[in-house]
């Protein structure tokens, strides 16, 4: 097992992890604020990919079409998210927790079936944006440009979210709401408006992840299913509700997944879900453990 291979797998793991991070951040922030585990988060990831596909093919052969798709598709998903929050989730805030989980579960089913209805059961794909096709030669190994770009881009997005949450006044309200939402409400801030914002932001990030994954993996109606379960693991390992935890957890799961392929491929998923159980049992606040 050469050093080149290990480095390459490490890099691979970081790419996988970066996508998990983007999805898990939304999942985690929504949990922190709304106290909801969103089972529809995988479905909106798929929706993001399909929106991006439609936009890219609408605009046509122009070389910049993919970039417009990546910029606009998440917004579309965020609007859908806002609609879901206002029309459905809002009615459920004062009932038992279990009902909210099951409601998002049903929403996921509906979104998936709608995707098949609109775009058909056959998967869709786009070609790589020409600027990022090809590979970079690192001497010991080569690596696709697009995947390198993906990691850098997602890192920037995460930094942006961090700045938003920690440095803006709106972010302060979000942070306060995560700690104690009744208190925020008492301060005369319309907590429901914050909920809508946070939910559509979280969902939009999953949509962005879908749009970014499109040139690599294509779009399939059920693409959100497996990734959702892995993202549950990510947020649990990192700590539910924490941005930094989601980043840490995402990278850990991504790297473990690709490294296990070298060591013991059959055990990958067993190890990942066992880790999830162990973390909940021993460190329920996750490895980051700030909350």
């Amino acid at each position: 097992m050469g050093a080149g291979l290990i480095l390459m797998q490490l890099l691979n793991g970081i790419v996988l992890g970066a996508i998990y991070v983007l999805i898990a951040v939304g999942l985690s922030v929504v949990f922190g604020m709304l106290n909801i585990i969103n089972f529809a988060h995988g479905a909106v990831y798929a929706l993001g990919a399909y929106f991006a596909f439609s936009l890219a093919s609408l605009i046509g052969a122009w070389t910049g079409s993919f970039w417009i798709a990546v910029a606009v598709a998440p917004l579309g998903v965020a609007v859908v998210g806002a609609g879901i929050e206002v029309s459905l989730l809002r009615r459920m805030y004062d009932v038992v927790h279990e009902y909210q989980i099951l409601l998002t579960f049903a929403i996921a089913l509906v979104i998936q079936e709608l995707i098949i209805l609109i775009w058909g059961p056959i998967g869709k794909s786009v070609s790589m944006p020409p600027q990022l096709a090809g590979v970079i030669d690192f001497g010991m190994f080569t690596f696709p440009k697009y995947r390198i770009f993906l990691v850098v881009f997602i890192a920037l997005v995460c930094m942006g979210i961090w700045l938003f949450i920690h440095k803006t006044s709106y972010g302060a309200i979000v942070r306060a709401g995560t700690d104690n939402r009744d208190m925020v409400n008492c301060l005369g801030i319309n907590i429901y408006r914050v909920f809508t914002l946070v939910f559509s932001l979280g969902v939009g990030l999953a949509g962005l992840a879908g749009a970014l994954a499109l040139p690599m993996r294509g779009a399939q109606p059920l693409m959100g299913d497996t990734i959702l379960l892995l993202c549950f693991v990510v947020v649990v390992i990192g700590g539910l509700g924490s941005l930094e935890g989601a980043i840490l957890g995402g990278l850990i799961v991504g790297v473990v997944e690709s490294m296990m392929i070298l060591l013991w491929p059959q055990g990958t998923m067993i190890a990942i879900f066992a880790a999830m159980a162990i973390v909940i049992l021993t460190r329920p606040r996750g490895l980051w453990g700030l909350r």
Partner: protein
Amino acid sequence: MKKNLKALLAVGVVAITVIFLTMPAMASEKVVIGVLSAFSGPYASLGEDSVRGSQYAVEEVGGKVLGKPVELMFIDTEVKPGVAARKTREAAESKGVKYFAGCISSGVALAVSQVAREKGVLFYTSVGADAVTGSKCNKYTFRWSLPTYGAIQQTVKPLIKMYPDAKRWYTITPDYVFGHSLLKNCIDIFNEFGVKHVGNDMHPLGHTEFSSFITKAMAAKADFVVFLNFGKDTINAIKQANNFGLTKRAKILVPWSSGLRDLQEIGPDFCEGIYFGCQFWHDVDVPLTKKLNEAWMKKYKRLPSYTEAAPYLHARMILKAIEMAKTTDVKSVIKVLEGLKYEGLTGEEEIQEFDHQTRKKYYLLQAKSKKDIKGPGDYATVISSGVSVKSQAESECRMED
């Protein structure tokens, strides 16, 4: 408590009336063929293909066999063995369906084959795993496609001979009976010819992320990388292999492809130079294939693919056998099919009596580059073709009664 009793009574009455009203008429004077395919889930595109293929076979006989109308019943297996087995059993029992055709995955076909034996209904399929007409063969199951044994014999063997310098082979395998079967046959040939099997990776059916396997194959300095998956999985794998530049460093073989469908979906940019094995290719000098080509050009303005040709052939053979047997009795139809020689889609084909496996040709194709493509469907050249099936002595098939 009384209100609950009344409630139950009310529910019961309502349920009974609703059900009686919606009860479908029992099939009596019709010949029904149950077409098993995926109509939902990641392989749903194949379901649409099987509709077109089998419908054409019915049109061909004017919608009638022995004067009885022919009806197709499409059954969604969701590519899950449990679902397929249950729905097949249900169709055989409640609707009296006696003929079944199709199946996409070997795992599903094995489960259906078990039901076919139990219920005494005929099942005509084209899946890969050797066991279907090998260790798990039975009286009621027929197969058109060459099994994985033949697919590997007809692809890996000629390529080893063509490229004597390619000594390092790497395989990527889907983790179910079909993949295992392909892999076993590959390893047998690697050992026979003394080429080195430098690595293998298993992935679940419907996997979308192949990067880790591709990097491993690159690090193993493989001369040949063999993708033993099919359909969506292969398409994703090849695209990602391209992204990583694997296609430039190693030769790639997909021993079991759906031919034209895959080549079109992946596109000539990604496919160029890749070797594909296939059960059916439109560009051959075979009368029945030419007829099918013409029909497809007329109907759909394109050429047929394996995923349409196989369902066509299944339905055609079942109808033909019923016609020849002059009865719809399953046992008599089986008698007719056993040992039958006919003009098929790959030239003269023959159904072996001892294991119900068809002797037919398998094609090794090489995808053309974009500039060499002339006209529709001209995506690949046929490198070689031939028949490889196990002889009765080698076969593991021991048919009961």
